[in-house]
């Protein structure tokens, strides 16, 4: 007697995902890097490394340092550039039948617009994930994602150049994330993903130097999870569009916390480094949870927070 398996399928911004679990940008390369460990056809989606208009070399080394239950990184968004991505990396996605979210960024408003335009007619790209945690080099380096007006401007411009579903990825390095969330929703975002890394710093006490060359870096991993769950909870309350939860997810129960506060899907980042098959274990664990709870559909869990 085979009980019916519960449904893990979710819909984010009009895209049907077979389950709510996908990698976080920058922790899974372009997908291919992990194909020896993870059957990419089992993931809800693939999220690419952040893409820019021109190839980007990234920051000096050291670029990473482990901290308690987390890590700092200042990779500097090294990537092959959008054109090489389309030409060299996209063909690989054709056989996969897994939605591809192209994460991208710019250093100026115009760059954001141009990358969006170049991704507009790429059939392998299902949706865009717009990283707004970048300084605007033309405006004294103010980070787009920390100013509601700048954030809205980027979103409207990208919207103009590209019709694909648009997910906007928010920075947690703000006083009130709901202000930015509402601004990007109004400007036309179809979904929000959060959080990106928290700015942090660590020091080598012998050399008196910062542990990473860039001085500051982005903190990720389990250390940030409670902050991330809180922010996802706040954003879910503040907007109507779907939210993808990110931050320190290592296990199925971590992922379920985000789903319960109302995230429609989750992204797994640092955990991939620790266990390359982490996402598969998380997917299996979510299914096991539904069976245990006697639930048929993951959507019965999403937003089930009891206050």
């Amino acid at each position: 007697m085979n009980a019916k398996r519960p449904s893990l399928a979710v819909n984010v911004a009009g895209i049907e995902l077979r389950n709510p679990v996908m990698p976080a940008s920058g922790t899974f390369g372009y997908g291919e890097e992990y194909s020896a460990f993870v059957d990419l056809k089992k993931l809800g989606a693939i999220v690419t490394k952040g893409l820019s208009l021109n190839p980007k070399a990234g920051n000096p080394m050291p670029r990473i340092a482990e901290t308690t239950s987390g890590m700092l990184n200042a990779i500097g968004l090294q990537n092959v550039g959008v054109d090489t991505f389309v030409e060299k990396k996209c063909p690989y996605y054709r056989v996969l039948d897994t939605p591809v979210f192209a994460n991208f960024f710019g250093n100026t408003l115009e760059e954001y617009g141009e990358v969006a335009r170049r991704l507009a007619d790429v059939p392998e790209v299902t949706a865009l994930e717009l990283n707004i945690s970048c300084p605007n080099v033309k405006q004294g380096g103010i980070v787009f994602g920390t100013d509601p007006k700048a954030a809205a401007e980027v979103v409207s411009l990208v919207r103009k150049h590209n019709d694909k579903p648009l997910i906007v990825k928010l920075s947690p390095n703000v006083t009130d994330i709901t202000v930015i969330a509402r601004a990007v929703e109004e400007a036309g975002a179809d979904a929000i993903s959060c959080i990106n890394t928290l700015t942090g710093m660590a020091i080598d006490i012998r050399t008196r130097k910062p542990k990473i060359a860039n001085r500051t870096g982005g903190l990720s991993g389990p250390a940030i999870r409670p902050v991330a769950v809180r922010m996802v909870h706040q954003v879910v309350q503040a907007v109507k569009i779907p939210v993808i939860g990110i931050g320190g997810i290592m296990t199925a129960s971590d992922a379920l916390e985000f789903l319960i506060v109302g995230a429609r899907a989750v992204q797994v980042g640092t955990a991939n480094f620790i266990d390359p098959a982490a996402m598969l274990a998380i997917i299996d664990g979510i299914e096991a949870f539904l069976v245990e709870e006697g639930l048929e559909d993951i959507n019965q869990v999403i937003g089930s927070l009891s206050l």
Partner: protein
Amino acid sequence: MKNYQTIILSNLEISPGYWRMRILAPGFAAAAAPGQFVMLRPELALPTMLRRPFGIFRTGCLPPECAGLPPREYMEILYKIVGQGTRIMSDLHAGDRVELLGPLGRGFTINDTSCAKILVGGGIGLVPLFLLAEALIDKGHQVRLLMGGRTRDDVLAVTEFERLGVETYVSTDDGSLGEEGLVTKVLERKLSKYPCAEVYACGPMPMLAAVERICSERNVPLQVSLESHMACGVGACLGCVVKGAGHSDQRPNYLCTCKEGPVFAAGQLDWGRAVNTEGGCPEGGCR
């Protein structure tokens, strides 16, 4: 490469601060090439989280525990305690569970020339040279190992190389074992002896830089195995880069240590600044 969830067979201190861990790893030996590495993590590793990279020292096989079972294939690492992660590793025992990802990266390229094969190891940098020596000897080459350490405690496993049939030359900074002085002094002397030589080196960055200078002055082909801080080990995080030849701020050329290395031909790298880890980016850069 494979992700093993496996157990430790033994974990012993072989010299003050240096440990040797033997890990059950069926099928590993056949997949491993000299110079490759693994990413290792104790299953219960709190408070450390990320895997640590270690060179593959040896592979081998133990008889089965009971008749009828398959023999127990293992791989070995040698590690030096330098921080929290390696300290936790040294507290582990036979039967403890570890997660092992590997073999990873690009190892040494073996050129079948008749030139003298000279291996240069500094301290724990000796690790990737054992499988290399084995492979070279298998192919009928004569192998010389120049092994340097700060003191006698930093000179490891030399007798194992000797048992393979490697000619070994030991030097220590304080003269407590072998010749007194730097291993590079021995290298200069050896190179003047052989009209044609190839050098394979692994050790601390200042040693590698000196070896590179000596080899490039004499036009001797050199391969080096590098270390770098790693998170993923498979080319996904881009945390492990080193500066490649011709690197400049205007035309950056970063090479991925875990995927394009850890072994590089010396000509691939930027030696002028390979040891420089100074930051050059504005506060709060893009991430």
